[in-house]
């Protein structure tokens, strides 16, 4: 493109609205953050180091995996490999938002991407399937999730895990249920259902037979291949 024309304008009012809208799920993120803060201090991180990690990395599963590898020394390449593998789903998530992101000025585009994570992406991606363009949720919702993650970490390092046994309350399933609800709220055309079946089979095969943490990317790409060859008919 030779002419820089950016048609997407982030609306401050909508950003605030999306911030509030993701506050309920952010409450659960606080609980996970507390679990991370506790795990980090048990592995010998100082409170400020754990907070810095949560603020800068902002990717829960990979942070748990990294502090799990903590000792007197940390092997750098295995840690990079694990962090990259767990977070590689971001590559696909970012790519899927590109049709919207390309209409944002680059500085805003790469600014909002700092806050890209599963929950706010799932909302945005689902709305895009229904024809609504919502990058405000990446920014506003992402801010709510980021603050909750830091707040949770803070509570975890100073007060320990907030709940004795979050699993007994089913709280470990919040994100899984949230993502599933987002998926099922979208289109369920035969084309999408075929892609889901392929994605499910491929992710399970990868989970069982490929190196750890590759199943999300493998499953998602396999589902995408269905779309590559089976195009949606334009609505008449």
């Amino acid at each position, binding site marked *: 493109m030779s002419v820089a024309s950016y048609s997407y304008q982030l609306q401050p009012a909508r950003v605030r609205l999306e911030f509030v809208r993701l506050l309920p799920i952010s409450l659960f993120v606080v609980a996970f953050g507390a679990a991370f803060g506790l795990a980090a201090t048990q592995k010998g991180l100082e409170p400020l180091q754990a907070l810095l990690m949560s603020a800068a990395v902002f990717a829960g599963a*990979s942070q748990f995996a990294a502090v799990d590898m903590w000792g007197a020394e940390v092997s750098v390449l295995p840690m990079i490999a694990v962090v990259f593998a767990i977070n590689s789903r971001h590559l696909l998530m970012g790519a899927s938002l590109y049709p919207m992101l390309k209409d944002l000025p680059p500085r805003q585009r790469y600014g909002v991407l700092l806050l890209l994570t599963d929950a706010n992406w799932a909302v945005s991606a689902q709305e895009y399937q229904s024809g609504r363009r919502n990058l405000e949720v990446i920014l506003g919702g992402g801010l709510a999730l980021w603050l909750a993650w830091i707040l949770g970490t803070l509570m975890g390092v100073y007060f320990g895990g907030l709940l004795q046994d979050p699993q007994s309350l089913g709280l470990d399933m919040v994100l899984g249920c949230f993502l599933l609800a987002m998926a099922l709220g979208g289109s369920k055309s035969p084309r999408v259902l075929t892609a889901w079946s392929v994605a499910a089979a491929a992710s399970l095969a990868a989970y069982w037979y490929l190196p750890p943490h590759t199943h999300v990317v493998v499953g998602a790409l396999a589902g995408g291949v269905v779309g590559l060859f089976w195009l949606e008919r334009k609505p008449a």
Partner: protein
Amino acid sequence: MTIETTTSGILLLIAIMTVVTLATRYGGVLAMSFVRISPRVESFINTMASSVLIAIVVPMAFEGDAGARAALGTTALAMLVLRKPLPSIAAGIAAAAAVRYLA
């Protein structure tokens, strides 16, 4: 190559993790800026997007305990019947708690 977990070592490790994670947040978007968005490419990324969620959730159901399966199954059913995310998620979490309480 190893890094000792001294104060400066930990800061270096956090910096490395941050750069790697940032690369994943930016990489897909950067790569797409070199691709012409044809209808076929658009179709690919749209089905890929909804498949990401399935690829996260399905192994969770298969490898999880009965509580995890109850949670996801209940959420799926409620979502198909009610079509409202919040009650569906709440029902799923309650199902996991109930199954684990009984187990």
